[in-house]
């Protein structure tokens, strides 16, 4: 079971439906691994419903009622039936939709001998949404962020100076934390990372790559 979770104020923004799409997708994916956060979200949703119930009603004319009544025989959009695509395997259904295949079918960009990245399209213009594949025991060169970074472990695990993280664990780092994650020795690690600014390698060996690490949002 996941040990690292989004803080409750972040979950509140998620439940209220106001997080940027890419970040929202990452939290939604964490919830699929985490019954506690699901439960916390359910309570936060109860709160939303109580606030909704207590709004001061704004009158709605009969014209609008009649418009809706006249439309009741319309066929519901197909998407209403798609809502419960069963997840195949262990990955959250939402991620599977964005990946359109399994890890081996994605197009990967090799960054170093032990790190490759695959960018997924979410349609969110402000955030990069990408899968990081780190070979067992491999290291992501020490880097820093100008923006925020959400990480969700999908497979295997990694560690950095602050701890070690396993399947389902969620991390949120604010700008300018420097870290150098290393995949666990036992197996390859695949993480989802959501960034709002490109990462920057700090060690001299990789610094030359920084100009190539443009944010690939969208």
């Amino acid at each position, binding site marked *: 079971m996941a040990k690292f*979770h989004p*803080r*409750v*104020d972040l979950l509140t*923004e998620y439940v*209220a*439906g*106001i*997080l940027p*799409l890419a970040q*929202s*997708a990452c939290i939604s994916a964490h919830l*699929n691994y985490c*019954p*506690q*956060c*699901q*439960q*916390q979200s*359910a*309570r*936060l*949703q*109860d*709160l*939303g*419903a*109580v*606030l*909704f*119930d*207590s*709004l*001061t*009603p*704004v*009158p*709605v004319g009969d014209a*609008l*009622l009649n*418009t*809706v*009544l006249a*439309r*009741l025989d*319309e066929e*519901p959009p197909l*998407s*209403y039936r798609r*809502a419960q695509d069963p*997840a195949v395997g262990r990955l*959250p*259904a*939402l991620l599977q*939709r964005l990946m359109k295949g399994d890890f081996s079918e994605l197009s990967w960009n090799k960054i170093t001998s032990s790190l490759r990245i695959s960018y997924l*399209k*979410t*349609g*969110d*213009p402000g955030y990069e949404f990408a899968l990081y594949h780190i070979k067992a025991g491999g290291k992501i060169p020490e880097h820093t962020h100008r923006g925020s970074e959400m990480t969700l472990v999908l497979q295997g695990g990694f560690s950095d100076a602050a701890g070690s993280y396993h399947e389902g664990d969620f991390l949120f780092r604010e700008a300018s934390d420097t870290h150098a994650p290393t995949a666990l020795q036992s197996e390859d690690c695949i993480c989802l990372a959501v960034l709002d600014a490109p990462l920057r390698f700090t060690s001299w060996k990789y610094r030359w790559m920084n100009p190539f690490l443009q944010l690939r949002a969208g």
Partner: protein
Amino acid sequence: MVEKRNDSASDGWQGPTGRRTDEWSECLTQIAATGDRAAFTRFFRHFAPLIKAFALSGSSLSAAHADELVQEVMLKAWQKASAFNPEKAAASTWVYTIARNCRTDMFRRLQKFDTPLAADDFMPDQEPSEPFAMLQSRRSRDTIHALMGTLPPDQAQILAKVYMEGKSHAEAAAELDLPLGTVKSRVRLAIQKLQIQIDR
């Protein structure tokens, strides 16, 4: 704004089995079972004004878009009525969730996002299925409702901005001229006071 209903008796909670018998849940069940348009009309007259208030809250949407949202949410409620499970949620929680998702989708449409995802896709794959999930939800709603009046106004104000006006914590902070950390800590304090904090 938060004070309309103080009698939790009007929620119609009943018995330890968790069976839900509030008026609007029954109404929705009837709509699903028989396609009853008179029942739908009653349902509309109750919820449409709340959805409109939700849409206009913090003038997040124009009047025309608010009407469009009311139409979309009520139509979706009709079309998805058979998916409503009164054991799992109260009708008003169910309607709130649809309204929230439709509003999020509308914001993204207005910003011309080109995305394969709709807000419905962000719901977790399995909903909590423990037998007590419903009972907990019922209790938490009652508790929240009872405790809402005890929240300091500055905390209640932030919750309204976040949930009803759809403002991020950063936007709320800018609007109220407060540090972001203050906004976040008010949210956390409110959640503790309302007794919905879960150990994780």
